């Protein structure tokens, strides 16, 4: 471990992909399961089932993964140096939260070549909330010389359920950190690999999805897809209530969650398209949240039946 650090600190300007490798490697050494990004459109790493479901219930768990996150309203056709339709999050969940979690986190910065003695690192209050997931937590944004690089959250609720034990969620904004370490102002100038830039790899994707979200997405059709996905999620959730015993363990609540995620992304698309009024906004968010909360409580029922929980084990 010591050796790896020395090597890294010599390379003070890691490539984008090196940064990802270094961080994942660090969390691998901390005992995390390394997971893959979720294969649906999500707005944040929190929506990955490896966070949404794992923070529920009593089982300890540690996981880290990269999650490309789509925010249709944030797209800028690759013309703004800091804003992206799709940015890269590195998400870590530690359950239960370790007592020395802040040191563990700071050590991860050292692992990517940040000299803690020479940089201004600060934890400023920032309480995170995801209204569509019925999830919120208390914590900070971590600033590195004034730049927000991580959201650090003690999860208090997910899917409307009070969490016990509490998980810590760390969400690193990878493009920002890479730009900081490479000393550049424009995300598209980032060196991704030895011979490719971020811009070369991602510009057309940013342009096309910005164009889709702001101009081409068909509002009526998107709404219809939202309704369909919601209906499918609801149908599955209704079915859970009546599902007969032998089939309950393999009842597809995870599929219900997928449809809930699709609703969330479709909602974001409608929002970017500018066709949602403020009231309708609140009501659509409420509909997605209702699905998320039902999925969470059904999932806990399913888990409780599968794994007997030993009371007083903590």
């Amino acid at each position, binding site marked *: 471990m010591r050796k790896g650090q020395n090597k890294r600190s010599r390379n003070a300007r890691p490539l984008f992909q090196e940064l990802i490798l270094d961080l994942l490697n660090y969390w691998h050494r901390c005992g995390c399961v390394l997971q893959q990004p979720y294969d649906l459109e999500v707005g944040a790493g929190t929506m990955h089932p490896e966070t949404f479901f794992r923070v529920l219930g009593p089982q300890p768990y540690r996981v880290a993964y990269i999650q490309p996150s789509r925010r249709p309203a944030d797209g800028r056709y690759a013309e703004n140096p800091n804003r992206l339709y799709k940015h890269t999050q590195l998400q870590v969940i530690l359950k239960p*939260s370790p007592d020395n979690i802040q040191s563990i986190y700071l050590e991860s910065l050292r692992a990517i070549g940040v000299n803690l003695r*020479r940089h201004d690192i600060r934890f400023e209050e920032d309480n995170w909330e995801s209204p569509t997931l019925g999830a919120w937590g208390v914590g900070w944004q971590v600033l590195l010389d004034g730049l927000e690089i991580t959201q650090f959250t003690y999860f208090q609720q997910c899917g409307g359920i009070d969490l016990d034990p509490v998980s810590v969620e760390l969400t690193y904004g990878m493009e920002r950190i890479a730009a900081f370490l490479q000393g550049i102002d424009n995300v598209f100038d980032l060196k991704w690999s030895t011979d490719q830039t971020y811009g070369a790899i991602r510009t057309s994707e940013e342009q096309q999805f910005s164009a889709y979200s702001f101009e081409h997405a068909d509002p009526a059709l998107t709404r219809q897809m939202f309704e369909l996905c919601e209906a499918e999620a609801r149908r599955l959730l209704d079915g859970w209530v009546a599902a007969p015993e032998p089939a309950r363990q393999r009842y597809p609540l995870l599929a219900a969650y997928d449809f809930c995620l699709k609703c969330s992304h479709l909602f974001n698309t409608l929002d970017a398209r500018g066709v949602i009024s403020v009231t309708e906004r609140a009501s659509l968010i409420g509909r997605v949240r209702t699905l998320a909360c039902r999925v969470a409580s059904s999932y806990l029922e399913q888990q409780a039946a599968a794994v007997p929980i030993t009371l007083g084990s903590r």
Partner: protein
Amino acid sequence: MKQTAEFLLEVGCEEIPAQMIARASSELKVILEKHFSAERILDSAEVHTYGASRRMVAVCRALRTRQPDSVEEVTGPPRSVAYDNVGRPTKAAESFAARQGVPVAKLYTVTTPRGEYVAARRTTPGKLTREILPTLLPAALFSIPWPRTMYWRRPAERFVRPVRWILALFDGSVVPFEFAGVRAANWTAGHRALGRERIVVRSFADYISQLRRNYVLVDPDERRKKILRELRQHASRAHLRVHEDPELLEQVVYLNEFPTVIRGEFSPEYLRLPREILITVMRDHQKYFALERSSGELAPHFLAVINLDRDAGGIVRAGHERVLRARFSDASFFWDVDQKTPLGNNLAKLTAVTYESRLGSYADKTARLRALARTMAEHLAAAGVQEASVASADRAAELAKCDLVTEMVREFPELQGIVGGLYAARQGEPAEIAWAIYDHYRPSGLEDWIPRNLTGCILSLADKLDTLVGCFAIGLVPTGSSDPFALRRAALGIVKVILEKNLPLTLGSLVTAASCALQSQPPNLMVSETIQQQVLEFLLERARFVFRERYGFPYDEVNSVLAAGADDLPDALRRLEALHSIRRTKNFEPLAASFKRIRNIVEKAGPDEHWRLPDVRTDLLALEAEQALHRAAQRVAQQAESHRLAGRYREALLLIAELRPLVDRFFDEVLVMAEQEDLRRNRLTLLAKLLREFSRIADFSEIAAAQK
């Protein structure tokens, strides 16, 4: 054993939200002093508390090492039972003495209403402070009122942020207790990056000096002084001055355990953006201080407060500069995009922005604001206010909410109004209108200023009245601490604008106008008389508050004046000033006391249709004292009324106060409730008339008796 010893407590946490620390620190002082007093271990030394981002600290230089012994007198059996007839103690006395733990010889006799009893003085030895603290401290810490708490281990263990260590020393050794899952010990932690992780501490002096060596300045005053000193040094080195910002200063005092100021630069090309936007970006988003030239213009520099001892090689500075560059480039982008659309063209978009579901969109609100602003401007013009312009008020109201859909306000919501004003000015609206839009969210509190021009005041009133009446109409009335639409602040703003701009607009007419706008424009709501009355009372409550807190009038003078009429606030203020100025003259308070007596008599006499005569009948004034009062009252009433109508309230009040000797004499010599019915009714009629005629400026019966 020492009489007193030093107490030191430090709760080490993960970073506490900066804006919560100062308040919690002063609460902790109060809480500990209360607990210590209750346990009788607080001596003459007070508790001092300090706070920094990772610690809450309390120290008491001299806390008693034990509670004083408590002595209480316990009454035993009657003396006759306790001693036999030769005066020897009986079994009863002996067993009583034994129970109280005193020798029989120490018993003594007390006399009670029931006869003589024996008694003993029982001494309970005080507990040691060392034994008290382990239960006292967790309870005290648990009762710190934080705006929001969290849990990180067990749901029952809540605090503002996770507790990671506790230092608790009394007389140099550890106080054994546990709080939020952490055992108290004898060590603290230094600065996260610069200090040692574990520092064993022996005393407060040792604590302070070791922490200083480990880059933690525990005392916020010391941090504040360091920041201020360095801000000034950097500014003067660059021949600039700091844009003063006391709120920001307080934030950075609590964001850093070892604050150091560094200076950074940004490209002068960003100075094309308005200073309001530049300062907001620097202040609200990056917590930087802006620098100005002596002319007041912004300079392309900023000062950042960092949590380090120095910035070797300018690494930190380069980082902060890069972040600010990105923020400014966003802001320029928003500015340029917004300039492509004239502000007025955003009106159509406001139909899609909901103000409140039952009160419609911002387009609906704009329609109401226009109607209301026009009505007010017409009113003012009719009342002779020269600058009142209906056209300006209408145009300002039309554009007021258009900035809500700009990119700039979406990014920086705290700039609503200001951005609209800046865009309006840039797009050629007259200054009167641009400033009106710029200022219309003001005043935002008791100390805030009101809009700088009349159109701004009209717009500010219209906006707040519509909010207030609209919310009351749909049942969103503030209760207790819950006031989600900030209606108290809206009402306060209305009162302040009317008073400080001295506007001849009555509260009643304003509430009526706002109700009409809600009815004539969408959502076409009927606002009932009852609701309008509720709004008026709500406004009056705020007016009382403003008169007391802002102008410093005693509550009874405020009540007295408002009881005589509250619709016209500037007039009420003039009456208050007059009343206050004569309050201490010799006749006034005795006269006020007599008025209170008069009111009691009249109220006790029951409904006035049973006794009131059409007027005082001189033929029934039997006694000289009542004739004199009647004559004087008639004369004074006439003169006082002409003073009152001319607005000479002080003169009127002084005249009225001259009635005092006659009122006194009347009460000395005249029995109001005379046996003879016609005399009695005539006297009551006289008193009722006094009350009516002399309560037009202030209702004297509301004046509290002098405190002597």
